[in-house]
C-alpha cells in the first residue's frame, strides 16, 4: 500500500517462496492481498474482531490484519488459496459448498482456515468443539448451522479418506 516500501519481506506462502516490498507497519493481510495478489483472505474489520482475515501461521490460526508482515518471515503461512490440492477442493471447501455454509462467502476463507486448523488437531470434533474453534470468526449470513454441518461432513470425509489410505 505504501508508495515507498522500506523493506523486502520474504514470505513462505502456500509452499511458495514469495517476496514483496513492505514498510515495518505493513500487515500480513495487506502484504497478502495487495502485494502478492492473494485476495482470498478478507478484510472485514481491520482490527482483529471479525476473523475474515484468518490464515494459518505454522499451522495455527492467526488474524492477518493485526499481524505484521515482517513478523511472519521464515514461517509457514497458509491461506485459503493453499487449501485445495491443485484443482481439487479441500473436503472442507467442498462440504461448505454442498451444505450451503457459504452464503455471501466473505467470512468463508477465515472460517475455512480456523476449521482446517481444528481438523488437523482434532479429526472428530464435537459440535461444541467446532463452535469453539469458530468463535473468532463472525458469520452474518448463516446462523452457523450449515457451517457446523459442513465441518462435521468434512471431518467424516477426511477420516474415511485416512482409513482408506492406511
Amino acid at each position, binding site marked *: 500500500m505504501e508508495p515507498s516500501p522500506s523493506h523486502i519481506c520474504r514470505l513462505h506462502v502456500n509452499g511458495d517462496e514469495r517476496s514483496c516490498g513492505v514498510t515495518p507497519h505493513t500487515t500480513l493481510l495487506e502484504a497478502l492481498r495487495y502485494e502478492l495478489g492473494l*485476495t482470498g483472505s478478507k478484510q472485514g474489520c481491520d482490527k482483529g474482531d471479525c476473523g475474515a482475515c484468518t490464515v494459518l501461521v505454522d499451522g495455527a490460526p492467526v488474524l492477518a490484519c493485526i499481524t505484521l508482515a515482517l513478523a511472519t518471515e521464515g514461517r509457514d503461512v497458509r491461506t485459503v488459496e493453499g487449501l485445495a490440492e491443485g484443482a481439487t477442493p479441500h473436503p472442507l471447501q467442498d462440504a461448505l459448498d454442498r*451444505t450451503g455454509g457459504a452464503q*455471501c462467502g466473505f467470512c468463508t476463507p477465515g472460517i475455512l482456515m480456523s476449521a482446517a486448523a481444528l481438523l488437523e488437531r482434532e479429526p472428530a470434533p464435537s459440535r461444541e468443539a467446532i463452535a469453539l474453534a469458530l468463535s473468532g470468526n463472525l458469520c452474518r449470513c448463516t446462523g452457523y448451522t450449515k457451517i457446523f454441518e459442513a465441518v462435521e461432513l468434512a471431518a467424516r470425509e477426511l477420516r474415511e479418506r485416512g482409513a482408506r489410505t492406511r
Partner: protein
Amino acid sequence: MSERAKPRKATPDPGMAIPEPGMAIPEPGMAIPEGRQMPKTQRLTPPAWQGGRAVPPNGDAFHLIGKRSRKLEGLAKVTGRAIYADDIALPRMLHGKLLRSIHAHARIVAIDASAALAMPGVHAVITGKDLPEYFGIIPWTQDEQALCETKARYVGDAIAAVAADSERIAEEALRRIKVRYEVLRAITSIDEGLEHPDIQVNEKASAGNVSKHVHLAFGPVDELLAKSDAVVEAEYWYEGSTHGPIEPHCCVAEFDATGFLTVWSSTQVAHYLHRDLAKVLGLPTQRIRVIQPVVGGAFGGKSEPFSLEFCAAKLSMITGRPVKFLYTREEVFYAHRGRHPMRLRYRTGVMNDGTLTGTDAKIHIDGGAYSSFGLVTTYYSGQLLTAPYAMPAYRFDSTRVFTNKPCCGPKRGHGSVQPRFAFECQLDKLAEKIGMDPIALRRKNHIGEATRTVNGMRVTSNGFLQCLEAVESASEWQRRWRKLPYGRGLGVAGSMYISGTNYCIYPNEMPQSAVQLKLDRSGRATLFCGISDIGQGAESVLAMIVAEELGLDLRDIRVVAADTDLTPVDLGSYSSRETFMCGNAALDAARKLRDLVAETLSERWGVPKGDVVLAQGMAVAASDPRQHAMTVRDAFQAAEARHGTLGSVGWYQSPKLGGDYRGGTIGASPAYSFTAHVAEVECDPEMGQVTVKKIWVAHDCGRALSPVAVEGQMEGSAYMGFGEALMETHTFKPEAVGHGPGIHHGPSLLDYRMPTSMDTPELESIIVESVDPEGPYGAKEAGEGPLHPSIPAIANAIHDALGIRCDRLPFSPPAVLALLKAGDARAAWEQARASLAVTPKAALGTPAGATRPRAGKN
C-alpha cells in the same frame, strides 16, 4: 383477471373472487403529501402460460427444482476466487478517504484543505461544494448530499474526501484538513426532536423534526375495542440495530478519457445507484456503467447510494485515474441505514372465544439524520400488520422523527419487525387474559387464503396454519408449554412478509424485473439479468429455473448479473423480491425458448408439442422416447436452423395491488410468505441471563426452489432476530466530560455484539410449501419473513420461564433483573399457569391443509 396458474393442492383458485376492498377509508386529517395511490393506467401483464406458472415444464415432476444443489458461484467463494469490490485493483488506482464530522450537529463555517493538498501523494480534495446536488433513494425525500455542504448532522457525517496514492497518505491528509465548526445543539431522541421543532436537524423536513407522519384507520376501531371482552394496552421499545455485513462498503470508480464512468460497487441496488450517480455527478445515465461484483453480505445495508460512490466517481473525474474507497468498520456503523428504534403503544382487544377485535397503534420512529427509505418505513410500521390474522379493525398513527444520529433505513424485515414484536407480545398477553393457548389464539384468527386484509392487501396462498402446526409439534408444545420448571419456557410468534413490492421506488410503468436469455449451439444458455445476488443465492435460483425449463445441467447455465451495461434492469435485492420477480421473468424467457424448441421437434417428429420433454440433457418424445430422442444441444441446433438465432426476453410486472387510498400500495405484494417460530429459553433468575436453547422456524415460502438456500435464509433470519433480541444495540452516548452528544457506543465488531458461533442457539428449519399461483413454480420469499417472529417468540418464552414481560429490547441481564425486581415475577408466573388450568381452551382443530410441511434436514 388474466388466466393464472392452475390450482394445485393448497393453491387458492385463481378464478376465485378475492373480495374487493370495502374498507380503506382513511380518516381525515392525514398529512401525507407524498405516498402513492394506485395509478389509473393499465399495467403490463406477464404472459399467461397454459397450465400456469406453478407446474413442472416436463411431465409430472421437477428434475432440479426442489433438489439440494450447489450454488453457481459456491466453489469460487470457498476457494477464495470470488472477486469482491476490494479485490479489484486497476492500474494507477488512487485510494480515497472521507473526513467525517466529530460533532453530532454543527454548522460548517469554513474548510481549509491547503495543507492536505500540499502533501506529496495527495491528488485531490473535494468538499460539499463540489457535489452540491441532493439525492435520496425515495424521489420525494431527497435530502442527502455526498458531502455535507453547510451542516453536519451526526458524528460521522461525511464532510470532505481525499484521493491519494495510498490509504495511509489519504488518512494523514484527512488529519491536515482544518474544519471550522459552529457547534449546534444536538437532537438525540424522538421526544427531544418533537419538543424542539425550532432546532431543526434536517432542513428538508416538512415541519420541525418530523420526517414523516402517517395516520391510517380501517374499520370501526373504537367501537370494536369497547365491545371487547379483554383489552391489553402496553408500550414497547424496539432498540436500533445494524446490519453488520462482514464485507465493509467498497467501490472503485473509473472515469475514462471518452467521458465514460464505470463504478464497481458493493451495492445491492445497481439500478438505483446508476440513477443517483447521474443526478449527483451531472452525467447522462447512458455514460455510466454500474457493476456489482460479488457482495459480501448486505441485509438492506447496501440498498442506497452512499458517499463513497459519489466521491470515488468525482475524484476519478478530477484526477483522471481510478479511485477506490473502502470503508473502515467504524465507517460502516456510520453509513448504517439499520433498524429504526421505535416506540410502539398498542391497544388490542379480543373476545372470550379468542376472536381479535381491533388494534389501535401509536408509533414513534427514530429516523436519524436523513430520510433514506423513511417514508416507506413509516407506512410499513403499520401496513404489514394486518395478516396473518384477520383483523376487523385497525388504526395506526406513525411519526418518524429526525435526530442527530446516523440515518436508519431498511434492515431485513424493513419497518415491520418492530410492530411485529409488539403485536405478537400483545397476542401472548391477550391469550393469557382469556385463558387460551397462544397457538390456539393464532389459529382462531387465521386470515386464510384468497382473501383481503382490512387495509386492502390481497392474500393469495397462505400456509400459516401449517407453520403453526409444524412448530407446535416439533417443539412438543402441548407437552411442555406452561409446564416447564421455573426458569425455562417456550414462546410462540407468527408473521407475514411481502414477496417484493408492487411498485418501483420511482414512478414508472416499466417492468420491475427483466432478463435476456441466449441459447448457444454448444448447448449452453446465458442469462442476462440485473438481479443482485448478495449471498442469498439469487443467481442460482434463476439458473435452476432456466435449467429446469430447457433440460440443461446447472453447470451449463451462465448468469451475467447486475451490470447496467450488459443486463436488463432489475430493481435490486430488497423487499424480498428477487426469487419472485426475477424468477418469473426468467421463467417466461425460458418458456418462450422451450416453446420454440418443442415446436421444432414436434414438427420434425410428428408428435404434439406437449409430447416433447426436455430434461437431463435430452430431448425426447414422451410417447416414444426410443424412436424420438436427441441431446438438448442437437435440439437447440435444430431449433436455430428452423427459427434463426435463439434468444428471448422475459419480464415481470406485478398486477395492480393494494388499497385505493394514499399509501395503499405500500405493503401490497403479489404474494406473502408466512412464518411461525417457537423459541425455548433457559433463564438464570439470579443473574438475569437469558439463554436461547433452540428456535424452531417453520416458514411458508411457496414452493422451495432451492431448499438449501431457503433453509439458509430461515436460519440466518432467526439468528439475526435472536441477536437483536438479546445482544445488539446501535446506541449513542449522551454528552459527557470530554465529548459532545451522539458518539456511537462502540462502532466496532468487538463492542457491537453480533452473536458468535458460541452464542447462537440451535436452529431447526421446517419448510412449508403452499404453492402460490403467481410465483415462479409457486415460489414466494424466504429472506426476511423468518426474522420477524424471533424476537417476540423469545420475549414470550421468557414470560413462560420467569413470569416477566420483556417489552423493551434488548432482553439483557440488567433489563431482565430489573423486571424481576420490579414485581412479584414468581407470582405472575404461577398465575399464568393457573389461568390456563381454570379455563382450558382445547387447541382448536387444525383444518386439514394440503400444504405439506417437510423436514428441514437432509
